[in-house]
């Protein structure tokens, strides 16, 4: 029946389009000058029907279940639900629904069977109602839209208004999603901060969230300091960036300025493949190839190396970021006007001098933007560090030791049995919030820098 409703909507849209279009064409052929081209009159009718009726159908489908359930439960014989908890009430509802759909277990009480029959009846009525309402609405709007057709009617402006409304709606969706995410993080973070003081979380240097059994014990011992965790993230990010920036930038400069066409046509797709490798595969690579290699090397040199080093995780993450930085730098270099390049070359600058003294400074905003976005990706990267970095929160800056990161901690805190009144679980949200704030600040900086220098060479 729902399909029928959508079919009616589609048909109504097409008929309304044709009707209005023909009506408008008729007016034009009658010798009058239309304000809007006849196509706009058709489009106006189409959108007038499509948008509101679609909203009605979707709302109907969303609300139908709740309304029917409420009606069924209130129609049960008096006293059936007395003294039952919310879980048991849900169980009865589920049983009624399964009987209605034909799956009967054992011998249900007669009142349940009766309720199930009423349930199916209501569902049928509801879907019939949907079709009826759709048809009536379509018809009503069609008549209204048809009555609007006249030489003076500004159909084009009408269409533009509806379309711009749709565009506003779409952008608002993105904004509200962000707000929703932040809000859900914020609520849990506030709960967390009721159990653990903010100063302890922000300035504590010890992170041992697995200890607590009872919330009140831990809130007083101070094992929720995020400093070692964020320091671990920073160490890994620095390792990643130190590896990614030179490789990414130099490969971009080579490919953009020096590489023969054939090399470029091979290397660019390969770099893009690198960008497409799933991070979990990078994790394998880090844990199976890079980490043992670093340990062996360390053993040969007599340097103590932890099994899960920040260097292994950060190094592989750096490789992951190479295509990111190199494609940003490549775009930025290509965007430098040819005139600047020619100007330097015509002065007798070599290609290397041209790149270093003219192209690179002009491309700096784009490159810096790319690097900062890469940094925020490195901070938020999860899979590689979950697999290759450690779990213990060591407060150290030595990349050869095992460190943990914010994302690793969030994952381990939320895995397994969790209860949402325990600071251990809530700490994950607090960490998530901090991560969000840090990456947000970096992104704002990135945008600022890009904006500030954008028109430098225009």
């Amino acid at each position, binding site marked *: 029946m729902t399909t029928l409703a959508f079919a009616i909507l589609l048909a109504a849209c097409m008929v309304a389009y044709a009707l209005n279009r023909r009506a408008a064409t008729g007016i034009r052929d009658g010798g009058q000058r239309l304000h809007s081209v006849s196509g706009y009159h058709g489009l106006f009718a189409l959108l007038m029907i499509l948008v509101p009726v679609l909203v009605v159908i979707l709302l109907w489908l969303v609300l139908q279940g709740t309304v029917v359930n409420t009606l069924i439960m209130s129609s049960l014989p008096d006293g059936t639900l007395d003294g039952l908890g919310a879980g048991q009430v849900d169980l009865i509802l589920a049983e009624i629904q399964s009987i209605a759909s034909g799956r009967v277990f054992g011998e249900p009480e007669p009142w349940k069977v009766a309720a199930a029959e009423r349930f199916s009846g209501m569902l049928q009525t509801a879907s019939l109602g949907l079709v009826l309402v759709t048809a009536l609405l379509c018809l009503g709007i069609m008549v209204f839209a048809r009555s609007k057709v006249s030489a003076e009617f500004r159909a084009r402006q009408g269409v533009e208004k509806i379309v711009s409304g749709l565009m506003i709606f779409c952008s608002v969706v993105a904004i509200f999603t962000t707000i929703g995410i932040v809000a859900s993080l914020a609520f849990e973070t506030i709960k967390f901060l009721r159990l653990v003081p903010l100063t302890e979380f922000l300035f504590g240097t010890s992170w041992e969230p697995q200890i607590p059994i009872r919330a009140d014990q831990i809130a007083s011992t101070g094992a929720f300091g995020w400093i070692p965790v964020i320091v671990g993230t920073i160490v890994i990010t620095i390792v990643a960036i130190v590896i990614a920036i030179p490789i990414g930038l130099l490969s971009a400069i080579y490919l953009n300025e020096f590489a023969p066409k054939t090399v470029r046509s091979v290397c660019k797709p390969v770099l893009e493949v690198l960008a497409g490798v799933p991070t979990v595969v990078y994790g394998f690579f880090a844990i199976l190839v890079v980490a043992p290699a670093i340990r062996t090397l360390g053993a040969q040199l007599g340097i103590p190396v932890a099994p899960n080093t920040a260097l292994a995780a950060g190094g592989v993450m750096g490789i992951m970021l190479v295509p990111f930085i190199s494609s940003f730098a490549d775009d930025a270099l290509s965007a430098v006007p040819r005139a600047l390049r*020619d100007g330097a070359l015509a002065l*007798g600058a070599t290609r290397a*001098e041209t790149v270093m003294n003219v192209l690179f400074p002009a491309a700096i905003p784009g490159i810096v933007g790319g690097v900062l976005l890469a940094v925020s990706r490195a901070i938020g990267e999860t899979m590689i560090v979950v697999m290759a970095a450690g779990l213990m929160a060591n407060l150290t800056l030595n990349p050869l030791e095992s460190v943990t990161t914010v994302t690793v901690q969030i994952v381990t805190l939320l895995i397994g049995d969790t209860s949402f009144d325990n600071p251990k679980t809530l700490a994950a949200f607090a960490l998530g919030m901090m991560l969000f704030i840090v990456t947000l600040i970096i992104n704002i900086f990135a945008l600022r820098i890009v904006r500030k220098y954008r028109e430098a060479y225009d």
Partner: protein
Amino acid sequence: MDDLRTVSKDVDANNTKISAKNVQVYYGDTHAIKDVNVEIKERTVTAFIGPSGCGKSTFLRSINRMNDTIDICRVEGDIRIDGKDIYDRDVDPVQLRARVGMVFQKPNPFPKSIYDNIAYGPKIHGLAKTKAEMDEIVEKSLRRGAIWNEVKDRLHAPGTGLSGGQQQRLCIARAIATEPDVLLMDEPCSALDPIATSQVEELIDQLRESYTVVIVTHSMQQAARVSQKTAFFHLGNLVEYGNTDDIFTNPKDPRTESYISGRIG
């Protein structure tokens, strides 16, 4: 025109600076320059005129091997500066371009300060040993570029902040700073307003005292005003080359006559 005529007589006495023989330029399969032969005199302004797409800019860019930077471009034939084949294997295009400066159609100052714009060429070629020498080169170049008085108080302001005409004179000063013998100009005034144009034209006339100037222009009035020699290109051919006043008053080829009287192009 009288004074111009005296000038052209002087010019004929000058030595040949650039000589091109049987030059062909190809862009991929397109034959853009066909068999061009020309002798450009020292300390002369030579104008290349012709309709759009006739190859005058392409030929100009062959003189400092800027065409090398275009992958699909191929130059054949013989171009000599002071008798030396510039396409010879032992010629370094980088050093050649230091001797043959170029000014482009659209002003293209680097996104650096005015001072650094001028100092860039001398710096990469090691023309100044001390800061004082560099200051001197910058001042001299800006004076010769007829822009010193406008920018002397803000040498460290960005070059991109100047007006279009000032930017173009800055670019000319930048080209002069590397002490070239030859200055190539590719429609240097096409992006400028009439006042800036006349300033640049005046500058070009002064530059003739020390440099060999080759200028591509769309404006026949400009060619007549600033040049002593004119070459007319059409569809990749050099149709006619001679003293500017002869070309404009008494063209030998019917195509030249059609062009300068506005019938083709």
